[in-house]
């Protein structure tokens, strides 16, 4: 890791992009004195390029990497860093009351705005959408999130690396395993620790259990978005079963606390493993049966194609990750390059017709459910015993963890001073994908927005932290 002057920082980013690296995340550190960009290479290698602020600002990279837009706005709002060349630098975390400061100016005959939220009509997290429309046609969408900003990253500063996991875990229940795992990997990276095969196995089981309930939930959510009660209740029932299984296997329905820094205390005897495998087999069978029924429901299928389309070039530009990217045909998945986890020969899958629409995103969940059941079937083949990470090399001040959550690549950066947390940044798949939701909504009908939103099924809590 190098700390650059302003000019060589941009050159370093350009060089990394030319070497095939992609943007992983950007954050302010040392109270805003330094900005760091994490870049992820083709085989999961990581580069961190840092730049020291001069006169409270650093050069922007948003022209080189549009996906850094939110990160730079956040660093400005929370740490007061200016980004030279990022114009206009709209507020993101800060809730500026002046509408023109945070929305795109849309004008024209009959153009008007529909304001939705922060409180929504059902059981939904809080967030505000400002939808610019003519009639029913969406011209543009400005999302204002961070109503749920709890300042978790700042609150975690100064705690021990072990205790820091509590703050990261609290960010989001739906991604508790993925987020804590990215954090644990980052901490272990700073300590020069590697996972043993036993530790990798235990953690991969937990991560795939989380993906299983999450994808079942997402299929139920799309059914609800279309108004198909039979499909919704079928997959909601399976979500409940998957969470009950979590409670049996990991002691908590959302597996809170199951991922720890430096090791795993997951302890399952042969009988417990066998019962878990059998229940997963039953859930798989029921899910396949429900999925088949959905294929033959014409009124359901008619609602899905060509809605909320995201094309591969937009995936690259916006930095879309996870099932949403793969549904557009971009076969990137952190699991294919996860030496700290147990995914030998893992191949990302994409739908037969990777159209990047609601239909493709729904099918992607079903494909990935199959993969998760396969991985779990392979790993649940004998007792799981507590395991510790082992010392492999010397430690470092900054560590990076990258994990594929149910929403996509989740990056965690840990900066430590001795055994204390100096800075932690969690950039979840939801955070990466919110701009894509806004983009995919444009040019669609206003009543389709809830369905488009459901097809991404992002967490607000994960983004707001």
């Amino acid at each position, binding site marked *: 890791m190098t700390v650059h002057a302003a000019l060589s920082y941009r050159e370093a980013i350009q060089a990394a992009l030319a070497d095939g690296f992609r943007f992983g995340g950007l954050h302010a550190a040392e109270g805003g004195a330094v900005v760091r960009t994490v870049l992820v290479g083709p085989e999961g290698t990581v580069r961190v390029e840092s730049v020291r602020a001069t006169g409270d600002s650093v050069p922007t990279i948003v022209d080189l990497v549009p996906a850094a837009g939110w990160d730079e706005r956040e660093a400005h709002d929370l740490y007061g860093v200016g980004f030279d060349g990022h114009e206009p630098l709209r507020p993101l975390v800060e809730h500026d009351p002046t509408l023109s400061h945070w929305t795109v100016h849309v004008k024209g005959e009959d153009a008007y705005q529909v304001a939705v939220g922060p409180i929504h009509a059902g059981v939904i997290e809080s967030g505000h959408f400002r939808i610019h429309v003519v009639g029913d046609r969406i011209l543009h969408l400005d999302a204002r999130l961070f109503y749920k900003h*709890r300042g978790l990253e700042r609150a975690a500063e100064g705690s021990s690396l072990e205790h820091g996991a509590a703050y990261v875990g609290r960010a989001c229940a739906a991604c508790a395993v993925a987020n804590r795992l990215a954090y644990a990997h980052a901490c272990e990276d700073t300590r020069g620790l590697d996972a043993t095969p036993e530790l990798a196995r235990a953690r991969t089981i937990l991560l795939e259990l989380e993906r299983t309930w999450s994808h079942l939930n997402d299929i139920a959510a799309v059914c609800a978005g279309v108004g198909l009660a039979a499909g919704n209740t079928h997959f909601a029932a399976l979500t409940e079963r998957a969470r009950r299984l979590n409670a049996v296997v990991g002691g908590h329905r959302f597996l809170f606390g199951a991922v720890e820094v430096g090791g795993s205390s997951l302890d399952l005897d042969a009988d417990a493993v066998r019962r878990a495998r059998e229940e997963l087999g039953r859930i798989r069978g029921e899910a396949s049966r429900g999925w088949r029924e959905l294929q033959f429901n014409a009124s359901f299928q008619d609602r899905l194609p060509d809605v909320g389309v995201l094309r591969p070039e937009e995936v690259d530009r916006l930095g879309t990750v996870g099932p949403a990217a793969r549904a557009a045909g971009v076969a990137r998945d952190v699991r294919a390059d996860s030496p700290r986890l147990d995914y030998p020969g893992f191949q990302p899958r994409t739908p037969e017709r990777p159209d990047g629409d609601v239909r493709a995103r729904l099918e992607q969940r079903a494909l990935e459910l199959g993969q998760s059941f396969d991985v779990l079937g392979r790993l649940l083949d004998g007792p799981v015993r507590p395991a510790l990470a082992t010392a492999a090399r010397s430690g470092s001040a900054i560590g990076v963890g990258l994990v594929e959550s149910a929403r996509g690549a989740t990056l965690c950066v840990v900066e430590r001073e001795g055994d204390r947390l100096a800075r932690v940044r969690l950039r979840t798949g939801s955070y990466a994908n919110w701009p894509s939701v806004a983009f995919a909504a444009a040019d669609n009908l206003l009543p389709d927005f809830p369905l488009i939103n459901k097809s991404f099924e992002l967490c607000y809590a994960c983004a707001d932290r």
Partner: protein
Amino acid sequence: MLTLLRDLRRLRRTVSLPAPGRGRSLAVRHVDAGSCNGCEHELTLLASPYYDLQRFGLGVVASPRHADVLLVTGPVTTRMREPLLTAHAAMPEPRLVAALGDCALGCGVLGSPGELLGAVDTLLSVDLRIPGCPPTPETIATALLELVDRAHAG
């Protein structure tokens, strides 16, 4: 599709909730005041066939104008203060407030003090407390059904 629906009835038998009474209802408006999304995910499953809370006359309504109970989750962030109070003020009398989950009760909350206001009862008087991190759907269901009884007794 009908084959899917036929199987759902038996799922309820795995949960020990009382038989539905008659002629009672309670309309619930949920407000997320900064939760981690755990309470929301459990609340969503109350509509699943295991619990099927609508058969007890309990439904989540789209507007506070239609609500008897405001069901609040999360540690109440500074940014959710105003929307929460606005929703509460929009409810018709008599109105009840339920705090769902440990964060809403002010227990074990994590975050920066400047971003959080604290437990729901620092802003509104709370009629029902449902502890848990997050409370299971069964815990939530049992608590809400007691509230139905209480509302109709009082």
